[in-house]
């Protein structure tokens, strides 16, 4: 399966066993979603469980919170992460705080799915990576898969989780992994081992990172599309780096990070999102706090620039192979 099929399968499996799950969002019903992630679900489960919504993100999330208060488990879709901002009030002030402020009387077990990330010439409003906005909010979990296998297992866990989850899907790798070489043809998922996705139910626990490549020289913390870009850059360098795919940003798998950095003595953080106050800053601070005496070099961040995501200059913006190569050289010389 590619990542879209894996997500579709997760939704299908959960909807099949739990009548309280509803899927809602712009174009998700009859049409099956602009990325086809919800294809066939309305036909199978009916219009009251899979339905199109008006174009109002604050309404989609607000209604989902109300449905959750009733006892349903809504899986709303925000068409692009760039358009999640109108729903911020409902996510930050309501979904994230509902359990806390009502001392558990009301909860919001909703899973907000949203395609995110760049590398597709999406320009300013189809490329953003706003995960740092959500990791800053107490009461929500933030999950980002990097393979079809993980996407399905993590989405099932997110839907089964009783806390609100922001589930960002890196749309650049919906159809195949991306190594950062935008000038080369795309490889489909079929040639990647993580495209072998079981058709049945399985879970990947939230809060557990994956060691994508074990190594001794440097620990690289990353997630989403950048997992593949980093893996390619490391291979091209012939570096013995330990690559950790965080998969869940909150709650974070600090134990895996700590063990790795204490082993390698070096840590690099890589994400597409802009640098200042991005999630990389949190990771860098945590590694510094937890692993200070083991560090042989400053923690280095390789990220998007602190600019809005440009259209024509996409590959100058994107943290690709050259930026990674230079940064790897530097961190190994530090």
């Amino acid at each position, binding site marked *: 399966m590619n990542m879209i099929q894996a997500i579709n399968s997760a939704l299908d499996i959960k909807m099949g066993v739990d009548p309280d799950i*509803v899927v809602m969002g712009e174009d998700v019903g009859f049409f099956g979603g602009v990325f086809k992630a919800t294809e066939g679900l309305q036909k199978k489960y009916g219009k*009251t*469980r899979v339905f199109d*919504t*008006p174009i*109002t993100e*604050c*309404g989609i999330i*607000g*209604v*989902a*919170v*109300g*449905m*959750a*208060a*009733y*006892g*349903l488990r*809504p899986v709303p879709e925000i068409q692009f992460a760039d358009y999640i901002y*109108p729903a911020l*009030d*409902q996510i930050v*002030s*309501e979904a994230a*705080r*509902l*359990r*806390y*402020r*009502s*001392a*558990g*009387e*009301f*909860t919001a077990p909703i899973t907000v799915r949203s395609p995110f990330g760049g590398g597709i010439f999406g320009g300013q409003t189809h490329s953003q990576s706003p995960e740092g906005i959500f990791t800053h909010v*107490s*009461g929500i*979990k933030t999950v980002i898969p990097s393979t079809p296998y993980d996407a399905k297992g993590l989405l099932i866990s997110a839907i089964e*989780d*009783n*806390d609100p989850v922001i589930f960002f899907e890196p749309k650049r790798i919906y159809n195949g992994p991306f190594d950062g070489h935008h000038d080369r043809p795309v490889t489909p998922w079929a040639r990647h081992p993580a495209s072998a996705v079981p058709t049945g139910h399985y879970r990947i626990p939230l*809060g557990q990172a994956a060691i994508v490549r074990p190594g001794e020289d440097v620990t690289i913390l990353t997630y989403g599309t950048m997992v593949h870009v980093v893996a390619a850059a490391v291979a091209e360098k012939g570096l013995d780096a330990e690559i950790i795919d965080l998969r869940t940003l*909150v*709650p*974070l798998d*600090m134990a895996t990070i700590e063990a790795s950095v204490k082993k390698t003595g070096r840590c690099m953080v890589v994400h597409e999102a802009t640098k200042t106050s991005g999630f990389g800053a949190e990771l860098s601070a945590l590694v510094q706090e937890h692993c200070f005496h083991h560090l042989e070099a400053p923690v280095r961040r390789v990220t998007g620039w602190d600019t809005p995501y440009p259209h024509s200059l996409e590959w100058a913006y994107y943290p690709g192979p050259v930026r990674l190569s230079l940064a790897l050289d530097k961190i190994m010389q530090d």
Partner: protein
Amino acid sequence: MTSEEPRRNLRPLSLHVPEPRFRPGDPVDFADFDRGRAGAVPRPDPDVSPEAIREVAYSLVRVLDDEGQAVGPWNPRLAPERLIGMLRHMALTRAYDDRMYRAQRQGKTSFYMKSTGEEATSVAAAYALDRDDMCFPSYRQQGLLIARDWPLVDMMNQVYSNRGDRLKGRQMPIMYSARAAGFFSISGNLATQYPQAVGWAMASASKGDTRIAAAWCGEGSTAEGDFHSALTFASVYRAPVVLNVINNQWAISSFSGFAGAEATTFAARAIGYGIAGLRVDGNDALAVHAATEWAADRARDGHGPTLIEHFTYRAEGHSTSDDPSKYRSAEERSKWPLGDPIARLKQHLITIGAWDEERQAAMDREVAEEVRAAAKEAEQNGILGEGLHFPFSTMFEDVFEEMPWHLEEQLGEMTEEWKASGR
């Protein structure tokens, strides 16, 4: 930046900034306020199409006339015992407000908000809903809880943030949550409960349930985007929901003109969405009851949502942090052409021979005593800043279902801090 030279020969534009009619010190005259005549507005069947009752959104549904008679087609014809129950719950709400306002002034808590003058908009509405219909209130519908006989002590514990507070001292006073009373957790963020109520109603409908939802917001909050998205969703999916707008004329210091009241009514907002809109005398408990019952019937029969504008007046300050004498005329309250909801219902009961001044005085003493006894009991659990509240460790609970490591770590740090501070 203004342009240097006028374009062609055009008159310069001017920006209209609304201004209330009466500011502090101004004499108040509502002589030109058109109340309409009690009983004059027709009552359509609840299955009517929204467009067929446009004029109701621009009228004022009133049942009680100036003599205290219930007149016209909207008269809900309630048994006197039921009316007396409503009167008592409204009086209890007012007595509760008075007591808790004083408690704040005495430093027993940080904050309070009264609903004085608006008691009918929640108590009479609660009487028209079923007990298990879900309410999504704003912060000025304490009358819903009281009408549903929710224990005053529980409400006071919340206001005092004491060890009896079920919300563990996490919320500001008056942000109640009472699932068992069908009273959704109150949020400080305005109008967020509107789409949530619609979502709850959609869920009920999708499950083939028979319960409906009701939401409340002030006229000021109708300017929020959530109001628009809620009405759109409610209309699109014909959600079984009653959407109440409490137009009490004031959003803190801003008069209703800043929410658009100069141009049209709030009930008329419904028309553009294809939702039934009623405009009701919010100080007339019978009219509020009748409109709510109509809307509830409509929702239950599958005819979709209703927006009810309750035209009323915020008789007191916005909150204990507010001084209305700084922005509005003190005369407004006494000259308000729709009077006081409690006084009007009382007069009606006397007019029909079901009540008298003696019984009213006895009831007033009773509710005051009930509130006093509850306050005494609640204060045994502590008041804000004095005595033991919830242990600090509870601050870290319920952020998530299970406490993640980073909160465990912070709990550990807090434990050290607590010890170091000698507590």
